[in-house]
């Protein structure tokens, strides 16, 4: 059965432009170190899109939004550059999430 999802649109404030794959690693590392393998499998985080302007979108299951938000907040550096991530909006559909992100 397909589970219900939430799409989190976030903004990355960083010293220098952040590479997508390095950001992806940082998010994974943060989620893993906070919740472990079991917790991560329940959250099911997935980076959908990240563009050069610093706006990105991640997906998770609909009951684990706060957990993913905490994990995003705990990302403090990406490839040596300091960053701060802030969630701008949450949506239940990818179409609406794109509208929030302004893509």
């Amino acid at each position, binding site marked *: 059965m397909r589970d219900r999802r939430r799409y989190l649109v976030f903004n990355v404030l*960083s010293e220098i432009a952040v590479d997508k794959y390095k950001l992806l690693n940082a998010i994974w590392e943060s989620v893993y170190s*906070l919740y472990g393998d079991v917790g991560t499998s329940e959250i099911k985080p997935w980076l959908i899109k990240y563009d050069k302007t610093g706006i990105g979108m991640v997906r998770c299951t609909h009951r684990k939004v*706060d957990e993913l938000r*905490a994990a*995003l907040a705990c990302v403090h550096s990406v490839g040596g550059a*300091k960053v*701060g991530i802030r969630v701008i909006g949450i949506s239940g559909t990818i179409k609406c999430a794109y509208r929030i992100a302004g893509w």
Partner: protein
Amino acid sequence: MPIFFDLNVHAYPETDVPAEVMLRTARNYGYTGIAITNHDDCMGAGERQEKTHSIYTGVEIRTKSESELNRRIKHYYSSKVQLIAVHGGDERINLAALKDNRIDILAHPCGEKGEGTLNRVLVRYAAENGIAIEFNMNAIINNRRGDRTRILTRMHDNLKLVRKYRAMPILTSNACSIYGLRAPREMIAVAALFGMRREEAVAALRDVPLSILEKRWDKEREVELL
């Protein structure tokens, strides 16, 4: 729009970020105001920032001896500093600070790496004297594994004591740059990691800071009347 404050932020001259830049970022994140609390053993601590309504001038006293702490509290209480915090961690300093009702915030009582502790005696003093116990988010954000586990355990214990004795918890970022700031909702989510409920976290970001600032406004008004 709710009113949120971050009452422990370090800015120029302690770090190289000007206070206005900090405020702009904090405003973007949804805060109403911030307090710049630079350590007092660095240059230019407690200096009045430019007259902006949303930046409060505070000081974080960092010392190793109780008598020195007492002397500095006296000095800053009589000057125009709006907010007095004490750099906690050491148990003797925690005790000396919480016994003194001129202080507003005990910053990171469990130290930067979770080495300090609070006990029921200390928290009872905090409740009596109206001193807010700080839960600093930067310790959770910047540490990993063993260190973070220890810090979360300490914060969990502190939160239990704070609930039992009805002391005031306060959530702050303790940020040294704009990248250390986190939006209120993220702070609430991170606070949930050590068991803080949503309502408690909202109160720790809104009601407690407001009450601290109001206490100070009352004092200033009294001085003006005299």
